[in-house]
């Protein structure tokens, strides 16, 4: 049994719909789901004004449609799953504590912002501030995993404290800005100022990076944790090279201007 929602027509202004969460739907009947309140701009409207709803009482949520203006899907969810066929708007899975979200399409900014745990997989591209701290907050994502198959925007993993972010496509500037911990894996590299102000944590890049002058080259090595990561990531078709015969990681430490104890590992094929 699942709850399936089809978007009737894209909203004209952003629709804030944190009720699109398995936690909310799990115990509700079909008619109760239809009458859940969403915010269309400043107006409160029932969910059925924008969605056709099939099914009830399930923590498996399936969404169809052009949802780029629908925000806060899966916000603060703790269990269950959301599958989206289409593109989604901002704050997807923000502050979530568990469960999983899969998007067959693109996602916008702030996905998994300040998440505590759980899993988000976006098959298309994503926006900026993935797993980041909201403005003013000390820490971004504290655990969990975010995988984006495509490209990503600015400030990926800004102030993240723990957890893992994997980007298949390239990222823009300030990846890992003010990072406090956790891991960012860049399969296609990133633009400039990667790791600026990072205190701790690890950024792994399989492509050469333009390093900031405040990062110092330390050594070439093949850290053992990468094989552990590879084992887990294989199921998503992600292969991190780790054997010495394939090459080595150049380790840069920084950001020395903070001063920080973070590291950036750049893959150097043999």
């Amino acid at each position, binding site marked *: 049994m699942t709850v399936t929602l089809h978007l009737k027509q894209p909203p004209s202004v952003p629709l804030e719909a944190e009720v699109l969460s398995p936690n909310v739907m799990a115990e509700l009947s079909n008619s109760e789901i239809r009458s859940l309140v969403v915010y269309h701009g400043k107006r409160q409207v029932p969910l059925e004004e924008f969605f056709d709803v099939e099914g009830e009482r399930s923590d498996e949520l399936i969404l169809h449609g052009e949802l780029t203006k629908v925000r806060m899907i899966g916000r603060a969810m703790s269990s269950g799953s959301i599958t989206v066929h289409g593109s989604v708007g901002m704050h997807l899975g923000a502050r979530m504590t568990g469960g999983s979200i899969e998007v067959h399409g693109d996602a916008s900014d702030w996905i998994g912002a300040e998440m505590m745990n759980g899993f988000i997989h976006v098959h298309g591209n994503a926006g900026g501030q993935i797993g980041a701290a*909201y*403005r*003013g*907050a*000390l820490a971004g994502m504290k655990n969990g995993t975010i995988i984006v198959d495509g490209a990503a925007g600015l400030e990926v993993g800004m102030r993240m404290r723990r957890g893992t972010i994997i980007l298949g496509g390239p990222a823009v500037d300030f990846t890992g800005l003010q990072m406090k911990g956790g891991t960012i894996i860049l399969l296609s590299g990133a633009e400039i100022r990667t790791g600026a102000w990072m205190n701790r944590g690890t950024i792994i890049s399989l492509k050469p990076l333009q390093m900031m002058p405040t990062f110092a080259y330390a050594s070439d090595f093949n850290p053992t944790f990468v094989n552990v990561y590879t084992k887990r990531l294989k199921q998503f078709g992600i292969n991190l090279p780790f054997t010495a015969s394939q090459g080595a990681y150049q380790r840069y430490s920084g950001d020395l201007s903070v001063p920080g104890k973070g590291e950036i590992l750049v893959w150097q094929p043999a």
Partner: protein
Amino acid sequence: MLRITGGKIYDPANGIDGQVKDLCVDDTGTIVSSVDGGRTIDASGMIIFPGGVDVHTHVAGGAINFARAMTPEDHRRTQAFIRTQSRRSGLGGMAPTTFATGYLYAGMGFTTVNEAAVPVLSARHTHEELADIPIVDKATLTLMANNEIMLDQMEAGEYERAKNVVAWYIWAAKSYGVKAVNPGGVAAWKWGSDAKQLTDPIDGYNSLTPGKIVTMLATICDDLGLPHPMHLHCNNLGAPGNISTTIDTLKHLEGHRAHIAHSQYHAYGGDDWDTMCSATVQLAEYFNTHPNITTDAGAVLFGDTVTITADGPWQHLLYKLTGRKWGNLDVENETGCGIVPYTYRPSNLVNAVQWASGLELMLLIRNPWQVFLSTDHPNGGCFWRYPEIIQLLMCADFRSECIKTLPDRIKSKITLPEIDREYTLYEVATSMSAGPARALGLTRKGNLGIGCDADIVIYEEEDDVARMFSHPRYVIKGGEVVIEDGDIRETPEGREFLVKPSCAPETDEFMRPLFEDCYTMSFENYPVEFERIENPNMQECVNASEK
């Protein structure tokens, strides 16, 4: 008109300790001996206090507004006030918005607050914000101890001039009195240093010392006859071993009235952060033998808050210690201003010492007319957490439970575990209402006698003290029932207390060239116009010798 019958009244100003008496309020919001008709509140079995008075808080102006802007993360998690017919929207939290500040204070039974640090430069802004804090009555204090025009007069030994300058500034800011913050230290910070010794000349001056500023400013406040004496934030705040500076400061105040702000932050022994300990016994002893001086606790509660003070150098140090956000405002040559969000943790020995010290001062200073409830909001904790402090003061068992959660190493650093005193309701009423009102010189506040303002709080008596004090059954402000059964019923505008100390008429012309030399605004635009103050209430200045 209102009659309150059958309640147990705690009115320390009139020596009433729990006697059952009727209270009558007339149409002007004044307590009278009898009324005909009107509403009757049956307060049988309930406890009646005079409305709370906060002697030292930061609720309006440039600094707290900057603190609001700097802490968006707090806005997202905090209590929201949704707009209703009678109520404006707002946010609670570490630095509540203006309207919410009024609702939260009134909701806790406080009806008068003293905004303790206003630079003249941001006085206009402060008054605009105060006008938007409903229900409570307000007073403000002007920051003076680092004002360079005044310091120059003191350096030159021109006492009369300095006095006129202070009087001029008080009226220019439309304030109620004088606040001194780290005398000389903030001025010295503009030269890259601080002032930690009372007898060392201040950077940028030849002979002027913090001690001279303290004594002279206290004398000026007395001579001007301000209803509230000099309100002093001593030098060397927050530093280990600062008790010697504090005692030295107090000695410079012999023979004067003074109010020492947030003394918890000035009562530390030890040589560095590792050896820092509480030195409250020594400080309390001084207060116990010097009834001319009052203080507020500046107690600390564990949790998140944001620290704001005119003490720029200290805030820079705190920022270096925490590595968190830091805001600094330029207040030209008047004072400084720093903002640093902070979290007090029980596991942190320094924080644990601070927590204990605040309570120790309140318990060791014997006379509740001398030590008042405060957290130096928001520095030690938010004002809406006062009931937690009352619980710690009233219940020794609860206190020892809390002490047990602190690290073991704390035991040798504090005195709190050895204190078994418990506040009575009468003492609580003194410390949170009658005492601060008297110290502020507001004779119609904190007093349920005939002719006083009908600011009355009625609590349902219960064992859970913290709950009882955070949820009064009724709050009456100026005769109007503003809180009833947990709901805000009315949101009348509060008044602002002002003084106009006498000032030589030529002071204007004396100030003008000095002002135009160094300020970035024009002289004419500087003083706050009297018409700008909503609901002003003039208070008299009476020279001590004329009393």
